[in-house]
């Protein structure tokens, strides 16, 4: 059992939903990302998702694309993300999950990546362009090392893929609540509840919901049906809006605190 599993068990006992904020590592810069993680933890975040910048993020909307581009301009690589994790691990026990496209991991070497992820205190990995059909090596090595391999399900995934992904995913199952890319949306897609009800019939695993979850109202809605709410673009956009301001960390952490309140 790793820190992700422990977190879900603890929250389940308390009747709380996990709040998982997303940050693009290196946006606006590496040092700030580190401070934001610690600020978010204080504000009540339960797990942190750390985005690894990539030149061609096909599952991301403009907000995260821009952050990714900026992080790459800052020279941030997967190696930097792992050393940030290491640095954070000296200061906190909050579970850290990497969100990375496949190519940076492939270029790093899959075995080496899993080994270094564990050594540096990373608890799980989400690879949005790696369906289980192509993931056998990563899954095998990750499973041996105790790194959670979190797979995604989407509104277009039929029942047979619900079962497939439930069998493969460890840590939790990431339900993408929209047919589309990351971004801020006005409403939670109304089919989400029904899909998760169906999913519960085939799995005991915790279910996190992300993509488009943008406000405390959305988080409250997700809390009534799922085990975790994942918020990305809304946070990254807030960072963009407060760039260069001295209270950037305070402001964004405050938003995280409001999101967390909605999970009780």
């Amino acid at each position, binding site marked *: 059992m790793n820190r992700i599993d422990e977190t879900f068990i603890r929250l389940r006992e308390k009747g709380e939903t996990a709040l998982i904020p997303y940050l693009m590592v290196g946006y606006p810069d590496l040092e700030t990302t580190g401070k934001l993680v610690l600020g978010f933890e204080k504000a009540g975040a339960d797990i942190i998702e750390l985005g690894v910048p990539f030149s*061609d993020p096909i599952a991301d909307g403009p907000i995260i694309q821009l952050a990714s581009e900026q992080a790459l301009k800052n020279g941030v690589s997967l190696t930097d993300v792992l050393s940030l994790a290491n640095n954070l691990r000296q200061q906190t026990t909050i579970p850290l999950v990497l969100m990375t496209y496949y*190519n940076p991991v492939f270029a790093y070497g899959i075995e080496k990546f899993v080994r270094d992820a564990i050594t540096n205190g990373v608890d799980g990995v989400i690879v949005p362009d790696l369906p289980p059909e192509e993931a056998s090596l990563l899954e095998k090595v990750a499973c041996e090392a105790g790194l959670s391999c979190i797979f995604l399900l989407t509104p277009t995934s039929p029942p047979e893929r619900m079962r497939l*992904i439930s069998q493969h995913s460890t840590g939790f199952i990431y339900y993408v609540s929209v047919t589309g*890319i990351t971004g801020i949306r006005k409403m939670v897609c109304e089919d989400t509840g029904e899909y998760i009800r169906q999913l519960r019939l085939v799995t005991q695993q915790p279910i996190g919901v992300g993509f488009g979850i943008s406000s405390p109202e959305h988080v409250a809605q997700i809390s009534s049906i799922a085990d975790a709410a994942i918020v990305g673009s809304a946070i990254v956009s807030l960072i963009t809006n407060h760039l260069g301001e001295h209270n950037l960390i305070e402001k964004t952490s405050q938003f995280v605190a409001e999101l967390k309140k909605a999970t009780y």
Partner: protein
Amino acid sequence: MLPDTLGHFVISNDLFFGGRFVPETLMVALLELEDVYAKAKEDKKFQDELTYYLRAYAGRPTSLYFAKRLTEKLGGARIYLKREDLLHTGAHKINNTLGQVLLTKQMGKPRIIAETGAGQHGVATATAAAMFGLECEVYMGCEDIERQSLNVFRMKLLGAKVNPVDSGSKTLKDAINEALRDWVTNVRTTHYIIGSVVGPHPYPMMVRDFQSIIGQEAKSQILEIERRLPDCLIACVGGGSNSMGLFYPFYEESKVRFIGVEAGGEGIETGRHSASLGSGNVGALHGSLSYVLQDANGQIIPTHSVSAGLDYPGVGPEHSYYKDTGRAEYVSVTDKEALNSFQLLARLEGIIPALESAHAIAYATKLAPTMDKDKIIVVCLSGRGDKDVQTVSKILEE
């Protein structure tokens, strides 16, 4: 038969090319497409309909033309040109779009999207969409919109919406990114017509099959004219659809050399080129594993070519397979060499080739003189150069 059921072109236990490296949202659509395509491939009615449109609408078969004056000038092997430039819309791209539009009709999807670099695939898609009454949107990088403005206007005339892509390098790679994002969002109503032998399975296999008509015709034509197989096939490689279409029907003919010509841009040594097979590493881009131009951290690096259609950091997975198994050789020629051949072919044969195809011609002009006069080279003239006239005139003035 290649690839296997997962779309893998397997080299060894540790390495394959191809696959499906895509967001989960697209998996069902890819599985459906694989299924619909597998049925269509065996369905005589579908094949007859496709053949009808290829003949009556697109103008197949295209001729295999003996380039007499070019051959004489070079003084070596006999050069034949497979005249895909004579097709409706001016390039081989229509072979694939007609096939995929027919599949779209079978799937009952009302909307199609496409990416385009040089604009040839965009025009071919817009054309097929117009003929079948489908809604069509084409993604095109801002830089390419500028250098291929004639094709942008053609697409608009044909009723397509052209969406400029301003992200990244503003060229073909980014147009594909944006088309994939559109597809992830609208997958229920939309079919994505990928224009080359790239992307997730089944695209590399399916586009190869649709383009194989090039090689099938060339094979029977050369047998009829010369009573024997050619010694060498030459075609340009961006994503690699015209070259794969020419090569594939000769795959089992092991004495026929395959030569793919990549864009050497300003020279491989300058780093400003698009030679993915020549100087890339294996990586995952746009849904499949293949040779990719990337840095040590797995970030895709900017490419350059005078020809928008070759300006791409990836390449079809089956070409990577041909490279690693030694079935094909991959070389590159520079912008300058391609421009020279663009003019050479115009003057000697009265044919203005697309800048993409001019790369294949350029390599043929190097190779032919080293071969005996009884040897035969078939070059794929994948498209005509009207779209490039402005670009070339600008460069020549400078």
